C-alpha cells in the first residue's frame, strides 16, 4: 500500500520545483523543430468537407439535416438529449451532397456515417451567441453551451468535455495539460505560444465551473517559449501555477502527469477525480474559451502536419472534416520520398496508419505524420523474445510486458488479466525499446479485443444458461408438486383403507345404500318421463290447431299411434316450412336457430315415446328445415 502526498506537501514541493517521477518511460528524439518554427497557417477552404457524426467517446447524436440542405458554418448537423452525445457542426457554408458511411479516421478504418458538404467558398456563419458575463451565469448554462459547441477532449481520447465538467466532487487540482510528450507534434506548443490569452480564458471558465483549490499548468521543458507565454498569461492569477515538466515520454499521459505533479495514482478502476484531480488539454481550454466568450462551436483545430516527406512541415488551422490529402498537399507532400505511401494520424508512438487520403480531420486529430523512407525505422521481422525486460524497464505503469506478450500470444487470457493487461495505456514505450522488434502493443490490443468479445459471449451464454436452468427448475418443481399431490392422495386413500374395519363396513353399506337409492330414483324418473311425453303430445296437438294449414286428422285421436305420429311430424315440419316462408325476407340465423330449438325440444320431449323410425323422420324434417333456413340466409 502506498500513500499519496497530501495537498500541502504537494504545494510545498511544487513551490520548490521538485516533482515526482513515473517509472520507466523513453526518450525518443523530439523532432519538434521540424514544424514548430512557423506561426500556425490558415488553410484555404477545402472543396469538400467530410464530417463524421461521431468523433468522440460516447454515443451518436441524431442527424437533423438532409441531402440538399444548405448549411452555414457553425450550424449543428446533429442533436441529441443523451448526455454522452455531442453535436457536430458544419465547418464551412455549403450544400450537403451526400450522407453516407465513409472511411473514418479511426485505427480500424471502420466506416462511419459522414455528412459530405460541398463548400461554396462564402464561409457564411450562423449567428453566434456569446456568453461574455459567464461569471453571472448558472453553471448549467455554461455546461450546456460547452456541450452545444461540441467540445470533446482534444488531447487524444475525445471524452465529452461537458460530461467531465459536470463534476460535483471536490477538486484539489485542476491540471491543464500542455505537455505534448509525443515526438513530432507541436500543435499545442504553437497554440500556447500564439493564443496563450484565450487558453487562459478557457482555464478561467473551467476554474469558475469547478472551483479547484489549485490550477496547475504543465508544460514539458522542451517548449521554453510556450512556457514563457503561458506563464505571462497566467501571472495575475494567484492560484495558477505553471510548471515545467522534464521531457520524457509519456509524461503527457493523464495518469503519468498526475503522478509527476502530485505523486498520486489514479486507481485502476477509478478516475482522476478519485484522487482529487481533473485534467484538460490546452486545446480544449482554447475551444472552451471560443465556445463561451465568442459563442463559436468547435469547427476547426490546430493540426501539426509534419514528417520529412513534406517540403514544408507546419502547423495549420484545419477545419473539422478537411480530407487528410488536402492537408498534406498544402504542406508539400512528396510521394517520392516514401517507399510506400504512409500517412500516420497522431504521433509516431500512438498514432495509426490511415487507410485513405479521404479520411477527414476530426476533433481529436493533433498530427499528420508523413515520414520519409528512412525516417522511422521499418520493422523487418519479429524475432523471439529474449526476456531482456527492456520493455518492463520502459513501462510507465510497471507492467511486465514480456509476460503479457507471452500470455497474449498463447491466448492464455486469464493469466494475462492477472498480469493486469487492462492497465496497459498502449503508449508503445515497450515496443519502442524491444530489441526483438516485437509489436507488443499490437498483441495487447488483440488480446484485449478478444477478451472483450469473450466477455460478451460469456454474458450471452450465461443468460441462456440461466434461462435454461430456470426452466429446468420450473419443470422439476411442477413435476415434484404433481408427485407430491399424487403421493398425498395415495396416502389419504391408504389412510382411509387402513382405518378400522367397522368404518369400512359402514362405507360399504353406505355405498350399497347409495346404489339402491340411485336405482329407485332412476325408476321414478322413467315413470315421470312417460307421463311427460303424453302431455307433450297434447301440447303439440294444441299448437297444430292454432295453425291455419292444419290437418283435421291429427286432432281426431289422442292415443299415440305410429302412423298418426309420423303424420303429425310431417305436418309439423310442413307447418314450420310454411311459417318460415311466410316470415320476413330477413330471417336472422338466430331466429332460424330458435325455431329449430323449439322443434328440437318438441322432439326430445316426445322422444321417449317415439320409435326409431319416427325419430328419423323427424330428423329428416329438421334437416330439411335447417337447409331451407340456411338457403334463405345465403340468398339474403
Amino acid at each position: 500500500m502506498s500513500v499519496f502526498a497530501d495537498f500541502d506537501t504537494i504545494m510545498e514541493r511544487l513551490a520548490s520545483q521538485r516533482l515526482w517521477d513515473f517509472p520507466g518511460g523513453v526518450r525518443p528524439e523530439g523532432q519538434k523543430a521540424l514544424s514548430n518554427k512557423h506561426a500556425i497557417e490558415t488553410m484555404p477552404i477545402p472543396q469538400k468537407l467530410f464530417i463524421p457524426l461521431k468523433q468522440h467517446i460516447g454515443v451518436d447524436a441524431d442527424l437533423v439535416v438532409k441531402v440538399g440542405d444548405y448549411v452555414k458554418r457553425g450550424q449543428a448537423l446533429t442533436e441529441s438529449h443523451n448526455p454522452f452525445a455531442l453535436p457536430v457542426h458544419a465547418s464551412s457554408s455549403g450544400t450537403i451532397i451526400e450522407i453516407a458511411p465513409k472511411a473514418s479516421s479511426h485505427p480500424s478504418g471502420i466506416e462511419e456515417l459522414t455528412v459530405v458538404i460541398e463548400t461554396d467558398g462564402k464561409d457564411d456563419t450562423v449567428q453566434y451567441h456569446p456568453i461574455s458575463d459567464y461569471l453571472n451565469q448558472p453553471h448549467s448554462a455554461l455546461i450546456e453551451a460547452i456541450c452545444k459547441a461540441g467540445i470533446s477532449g482534444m488531447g487524444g481520447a475525445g471524452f465529452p468535455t461537458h460530461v467531465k465538467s459536470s463534476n460535483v466532487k471536490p477538486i484539489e487540482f485542476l491540471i491543464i495539460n500542455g505537455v505534448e510528450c509525443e515526438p513530432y507534434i507541436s500543435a499545442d506548443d504553437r497554440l500556447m505560444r500564439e493564443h496563450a490569452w484565450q487558453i487562459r480564458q478557457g482555464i478561467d471558465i473551467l476554474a469558475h465551473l469547478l472551483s479547484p483549490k489549485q490550477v496547475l499548468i504543465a508544460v514539458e521543458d522542451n517548449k521554453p517559449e510556450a512556457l514563457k507565454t503561458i506563464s505571462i498569461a497566467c501571472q495575475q492569477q494567484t492560484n495558477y501555477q505553471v510548471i515545467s515538466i522534464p521531457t520524457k515520454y509519456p509524461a503527457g499521459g493523464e495518469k503519468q502527469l498526475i503522478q509527476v505533479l502530485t505523486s498520486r495514482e489514479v486507481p485502476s478502476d477509478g478516475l482522476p477525480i478519485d484522487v482529487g484531480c481533473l485534467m484538460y488539454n490546452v486545446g480544449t481550454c482554447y475551444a472552451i474559451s471560443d465556445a463561451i466568450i465568442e459563442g463559436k462551436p468547435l469547427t476547426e483545430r490546430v493540426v501539426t502536419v509534419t514528417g520529412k516527406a513534406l517540403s514544408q512541415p507546419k502547423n495549420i488551422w484545419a477545419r473539422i472534416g478537411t480530407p487528410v490529402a488536402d492537408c498534406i498537399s498544402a504542406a508539400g507532400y512528396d510521394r517520392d520520398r516514401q517507399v510506400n505511401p504512409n500517412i500516420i494520424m497522431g504521433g509516431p508512438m500512438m498514432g495509426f496508419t490511415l487507410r485513405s487520403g479521404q479520411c477527414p480531420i476530426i476533433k481529436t486529430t493533433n498530427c499528420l505524420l508523413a515520414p520519409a523512407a528512412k525516417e522511422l525505422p521499418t520493422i523487418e521481422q519479429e524475432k523471439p523474445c529474449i526476456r531482456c525486460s527492456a520493455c518492463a524497464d520502459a513501462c510507465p505503469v510497471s507492467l511486465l510486458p514480456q509476460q503479457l506478450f507471452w500470455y497474449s500470444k498463447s491466448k492464455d487470457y486469464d493469466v494475462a488479466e492477472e498480469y493486469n493487461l487492462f492497465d496497459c495505456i498502449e503508449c508503445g514505450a515497450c515496443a519502442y525499446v524491444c530489441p526483438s522488434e516485437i509489436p507488443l502493443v499490437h498483441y495487447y490490443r488483440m488480446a484485449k479485443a478478444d477478451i472483450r468479445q469473450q466477455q460478451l459471449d460469456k454474458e450471452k451464454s450465461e443468460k441462456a444458461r440461466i434461462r435454461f436452468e430456470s426452466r429446468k427448475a420450473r419443470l422439476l418443481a411442477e413435476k415434484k408438486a404433481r408427485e407430491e399431490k399424487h403421493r398425498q392422495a395415495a396416502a389419504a386413500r391408504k389412510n382411509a383403507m387402513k382405518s378400522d374395519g367397522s368404518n369400512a363396513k359402514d362405507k360399504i353399506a353406505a355405498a350399497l345404500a347409495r346404489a339402491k337409492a340411485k336405482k329407485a330414483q332412476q325408476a321414478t324418473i322413467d315413470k315421470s318421463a312417460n307421463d311427460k311425453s303424453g302431455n307433450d303430445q297434447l301440447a303439440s296437438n294444441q299448437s297444430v290447431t292454432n295453425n291455419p294449414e292444419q290437418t283435421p286428422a291429427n286432432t281426431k285421436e289422442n292415443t299415440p299411434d305410429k302412423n298418426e305420429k309420423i303424420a303429425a311430424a310431417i305436418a309439423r315440419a310442413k307447418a314450420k316450412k310454411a311459417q318460415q316462408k311466410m316470415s320476413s325476407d330477413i330471417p336472422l340465423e338466430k331466429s332460424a336457430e330458435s325455431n329449430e330449438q323449439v322443434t328440437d325440444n318438441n322432439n326430445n320431449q316426445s322422444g321417449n315415446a317415439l320409435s326409431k323410425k319416427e325419430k328419423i323422420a323427424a330428423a329428416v324434417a329438421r334437416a330439411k328445415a335447417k337447409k331451407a333456413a340456411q338457403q334463405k340466409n345465403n340468398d339474403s
Partner: protein
Amino acid sequence: MPKQKRQLNKKIMTAKSSSSPHHHIQRGTGAVMRIVMFACIPGIALQTFFFGYGILIQVLLAMATAVIAEATILELRKKPVEHALKDCSALVAGLLLAICLPPLAPWWIVVIGTCFAVVIVKQLYGGLGYNLFNPAMAAYVMLLISFPVQMTSWLPPAVLAEQTIGLKDTVYIILTGYTSNGYNLDQLRVAADGLTMATPLDHVKTALTQNLTVEEAINSEIFRGSSGIGWSLVALGYLIGGLALLKLKIINWHIPLSMIMGAVLCASLLYLIDNSIYPGPWFHIVNGSLIVGAFFIATDPVSASTTNNGRLIFGFAIGMWTIIIRTFGNYPDAIAFSVILMNMAVPLIDYYTRPRTYGHKVKAKSISKE
C-alpha cells in the same frame, strides 16, 4: 487538382497499415549480443596474457561449432537459418562456454560442450528465448561431470610455468594432446618448482584437506597477497567489460550487485565463524569466476528472472550458493551449479515478485473532502 488528389488518395489507400508505435529504437537482438561479445574482450585479452593462447583457440573453436550446430539444428527443425544466425545468440553461448574451460582442454571437450549447449539446452527447448537453463552453464556442468580430468587441468600462470608454449604448440596440444616437441598437457602443467599447478580455489581446497589453515594455504607461490596471480587481473578485465554492459544498459545492475553481495555476505559469515578454514570474501571475489559469472553468465536474460525484485533474489541466491558449494562441495568452482539451480527457481521467483502496477493497491487516504 482534383485528379491529382484522387491519385493521392489512391496511393495512400494502398499503404500497408501497421500498428503503433511506428517509432523504434535502433538496437536489435543481434546488436545486443555483439555488444556482449565485445565486452568479453578485455577479460579474454588478460586471460591470454596470463595463461597463453589456449583461450583464443577455445573461443574460436566454440564459436565455429556453435554456428554449425545452430545452422544444422535449425535446418532439421525447418526454421529459417539465416534469420536466427543473425541474432548471434549461438556465438555468445559458445563464447561464454569457451572462457570457462581450461585453456588447453582437448578440442572435443569444447565441441561436445558447445553442441550440447546449442542443440540440447537451447534448440530442443524451442530455440532462443525458450530455454530454461543457461546453455553455457548447463554444458559446463555436463562436461565437468563427464570429463572431470580434462575439465580440471588448468595451467599455471605463464610467469610461473616451467615452459611456456607458443601459438603453434597451443594448437597442437588442443588438437592432438601433444606439443610439436612431444610434451603432453601434464608436463606443461608443472610449475617451475616441479609441482603440478592448480587453480587458486583448488589449491586452497587441497591445502585445507592437508590440515593447513587458509593463511598457510595462500602463502604459496601462485598467490600474490590473497589473490592468485593472473586470476585477479582476469577478473578485473571482466569487471571492466561488465561495467561497460551496465553503462550501455545491456544488463541491469540488479543481478551482478546482488550476486556479489550474496557471495560476500555468505563468505563473511563463514569467515567470522572460523577464519582458519574459511577464506574471506575478498578471496572469493578475486579468485575463480565470480565476476565473470556475475556480469556475463547470470545475466543471461532468457534464463534469469525478469522482474527487478526477482533479479535481486536470483542474484543473491546464486552468490550464496556459489560460496556454499565452493566451501562444502567437491567441485573446483560453483558458479555453474548455482546458476543452474537458480534457473529452476526462476518461474517461482518471477511469479512472486511482480511489480505493483500503477493504480493498484493504493490508498486514497490523503484526498481532502471538503
